């Protein structure tokens, strides 16, 4: 079979046999080789971590309601912000889209039965779990108060940093391997398992984004592995790499750390951008505007991201020449990011836009990411960054990018693919309401912090000047609104699992392959390898009221996509 009839899902009888019911028992999930189940395992783990990271965020915000002590003393506060940052970065955002959603969607988008190396995939997940255990272990081995950045010599000084640092570093080391294996798996999968007809430039843009991300994961992550290993040795045996007392250099550590952690920012945001490309095209029912520009900009961002790490260190004492070079290259990242935003907005032009929850999240992303990206200009500008570095301006900026963009995209993607993953529809009105709460709460929390930062409010500060209190109060109120939005989301999504309407194969009118198999997909995804055309050609996709799903117009005929080749 070479043609694919979109109107007839290959496994139309929902509930008969799908990946959820294929085998039973807890062990069939823990040791599954099915990419969909591994994706769901990741999703459960990531969302659980997100809950704890979020709780620490609320504790931080609550403590900051008043100068000095509100609910806890300095040591506890320092642990709260460290754990919030470390959990959100290493356990939530980095694995969220690639490992959770990517694992589920990527092989189906390719019309494949699974990723290239299913066993390696399972091992990635187990490594994640092991790494997470070591992370939690830091709480029981003395606590962790270094900040998620583990800056030396604080982190290697046993008299300064708490004892949990070694356990947490071990966790980062192990999580790194999980990330590398996932990236490797996706690279090989995309190279080897594309279906007939899917040339590189016919891939859904989500795959371009995941592919660019995977390259970063494979090339950058080993550096953080080596760095945290050196840090562990230094702290345990006093080998003198970073400690100035032993002839080491603390700034060297910062170079090593940001050589990974800057690309890591793009490991977080690139998959989010990929999701947004899908959401906007599908929910506008219109061809993505400027496919090649968007695809190339993903690759460009991936390449540039390796060359800009020094912009985290403008005040560190590195030479003015280095600062100038890093500043210049940093600005070059702005261009592909701007191009993407323009292209996404242009995609909506004369579309047929459905303002579903995923689309609202996509628009929230455009709003928030624009602010996050534009404030990056302030921070990339040398003269201005000197004043803004290590203030709340930076905190606000990276929350706009990492949380407001990467995580919002992830939540949008979760709503987009939820019917596919679970076979259930959630309550659309509650979805829109929660999206509004998240959007408002987020902006109240973090836009306020731009002002706090320019006024001179320093980050990671338990105590602050009385004149900063008004900003902290507004920000904390925002964080509570945000939390209500997320709890509401958790509520209706869990409710949908038990009481949700059955999801059709194609509830949104998507054209890529994951919408052409049943919801939820059968164990093998597709009975035979499908052939594909242009996955952004929506001219033949129409809503069928009777079946309650989108179908391809002109049933029985080859899909027009095939006329192209």
């Amino acid at each position, binding site marked *: 079979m070479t043609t694919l009839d979109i109107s007839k899902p290959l496994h139309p009888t929902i509930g008969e046999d799908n990946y959820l019911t294929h085998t039973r028992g807890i062990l069939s999930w823990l040791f599954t080789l099915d990419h969909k189940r591994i994706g769901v395992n990741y999703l459960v783990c990531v969302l659980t971590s997100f809950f704890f990271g979020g709780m620490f965020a609320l504790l931080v915000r609550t403590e900051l309601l008043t100068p000095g002590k509100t609910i806890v003393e300095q040591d506890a506060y320092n642990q709260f912000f460290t754990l919030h940052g470390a959990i959100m970065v290493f356990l939530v955002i980095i694995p969220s889209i690639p490992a959770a959603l990517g694992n589920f969607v990527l092989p189906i988008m390719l019309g494949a039965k699974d990723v290239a190396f299913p066993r390696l995939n399972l091992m990635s997940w187990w490594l994640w779990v092991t790494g997470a255990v070591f992370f939690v272990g830091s709480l029981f081995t003395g606590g962790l108060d270094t900040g998620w950045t583990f800056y030396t010599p604080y982190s290697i000084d046993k008299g300064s940093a708490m004892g949990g640092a070694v356990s947490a570093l071990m966790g980062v080391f192990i999580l790194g391997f999980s990330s590398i294996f996932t990236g490797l798996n996706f690279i090989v999968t995309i190279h080897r398992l594309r279906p007939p007809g899917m040339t590189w430039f016919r891939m859904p843009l989500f795959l371009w984004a995941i592919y660019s991300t995977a390259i970063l994961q494979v090339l950058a992550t080993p550096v953080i592995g080596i760095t945290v290993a050196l840090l562990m040795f230094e702290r345990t045996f006093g080998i003198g790499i970073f400690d100035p007392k032993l002839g080491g250099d603390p700034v060297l550590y910062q170079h090593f750390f940001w050589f990974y952690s800057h690309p890591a920012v793009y490991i977080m945001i690139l998959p989010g951008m990929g999701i947004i490309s899908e959401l906007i095209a599908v929910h506008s029912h219109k061809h993505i505007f400027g496919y090649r520009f968007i695809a190339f900009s993903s690759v460009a961002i991936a390449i540039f991201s390796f060359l800009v790490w020094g912009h985290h260190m403008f005040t560190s004492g590195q030479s003015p020449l280095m600062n100038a070079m890093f500043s210049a290259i940093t600005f070059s990242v702005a261009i592909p990011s701007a191009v993407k935003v323009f292209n996404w907005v242009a995609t909506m032009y004369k579309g047929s836009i459905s303002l579903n929850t995923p689309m609202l999240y996509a628009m929230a992303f455009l709003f928030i990411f624009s602010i996050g990206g534009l404030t990056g200009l302030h921070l990339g*500008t040398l003269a201005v960054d000197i004043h803004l570095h290590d203030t709340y301006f930076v905190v606000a900026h990276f929350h706009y990018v990492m949380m407001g963009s990467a995580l919002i995209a992830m939540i949008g993607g979760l709503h987009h693919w939820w019917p596919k993953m679970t076979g259930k529809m959630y309550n659309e009105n509650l979805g829109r309401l929660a999206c509004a709460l998240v959007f408002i709460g987020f902006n109240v929390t973090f836009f306020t912090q731009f002002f706090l930062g320019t006024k001179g409010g320093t980050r990671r500060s338990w105590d602050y000047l009385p004149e900063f209190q008004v900003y902290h109060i507004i920000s904390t109120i925002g964080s509570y609104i945000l939390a209500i939005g997320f709890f509401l989301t958790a509520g209706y999504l869990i409710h949908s699992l038990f009481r949700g309407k059955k999801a059709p194969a194609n509830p949104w009118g998507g054209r890529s392959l994951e919408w052409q198999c049943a919801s939820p997909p059968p164990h093998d995804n597709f009975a035979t390898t499908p052939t594909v055309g242009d996955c952004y050609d929506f*001219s033949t996709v129409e809503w069928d009221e009777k079946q309650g799903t989108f179908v391809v117009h002109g049933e029985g005929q080859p899909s027009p996509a095939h006329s192209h080749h």
Partner: protein
Amino acid sequence: MSTSRLIAIALIVLTILGGIALVIAGDTMWFPRKASTVAPQMDLVFNIITWISIFFFVLIMVVMFWFAGEYHTGRQAKATSDVTHNTPLELTWTIIPLILVIAIFYVGLEGYLNLRVAPVGAYDVRVTAQKWSWLFEHSNGASEANVLRVPLNRPVRLLMQSKDVLHACFIPAFRVKQDIVPGRISTIWFEAKEAGEFDLFCAEYCGKDHSMMRAKVIVKPEAEFIADLKEAAELHKKLSDSELAQYAMSKLYVRCQSCHSLDGKRGTGPSWRETNANWNKERVFKDGNKEVVNENYIRESILNPGLHIVETFTNAMPTFKGQLDDRQIAALTLAIKNLQHFDNAGKLKAGEAIDWQIPGGFPGLYGGDGSVPANGGAASSPATIPPSNTP
């Protein structure tokens, strides 16, 4: 008109108004006082970037909301355009931002180079940062904790060293910041254009009391600055024991107060009130060792804080070796030993005589009538019997 269009129009209006508000509110919304020579230029660069950002943000959002309202349709409807790309348009919105960011980079670089290169003849102040206090040493030997005195309208360069971990010197009103890396001397310069008091923060996370590692920058015209420095240098050179104790309370205690209270409340370390109450008594420490609380115990605790840890506390105090000279240690010792004469604000109690410090001291040796001088507290009657510290 459909609801989605109404909402779209409302959002468009809100976005535009928000953008205008940010432009108008401008400086006052964003910045602390512009108290240095570089501040106006740096704020201008910030504002230019902000205006460009607001322009593009409002543009993008207005178009997005407009499209969302205009092209919001039911599921049956189809897109009314099948355009897939427009290369000239896409090149336009690639190239225009490119030109803009090159311009922004250039102004940013220029401002930064001004910030890095100190003028010839700048006045140098040596700065020592350590967990969790600042020490500023001047050319005439004056050294003050958590107070940085600088002259108005003169370039000042800070030569900064760290005793322990990374710190960063940040003076928002001057728009300057520099990390202080242990093992090297980091510099920063500024020229104050406004007299007054300004905040100095540690901007690089350095552990427990990072947020309390603050200092005051006091900017005064040159004549007053010189007078202050002279006084600061004299202070701990030629003083009576009583004056030394008052000097310790007013000048040195600021470096101790984040951990050691005066009111008996236990903080990161024991309250000085507690230590004073235990003077000449034997204390048992965590490791089981015993020591009498006396002058040597105080000296050891300042120079080698880990030696004796009182029960329930941890070894959190950094050493002050090389930071405090013997005279200053003697001053601190006198202050702690005679703390019963000081109130919880560190002021000599009203009515306390000045010559309490030596039991059986020589009347007439200390000058005056033995009462507290004007700056130390209220005047009191002479001939107060010096209290004894022995229990």
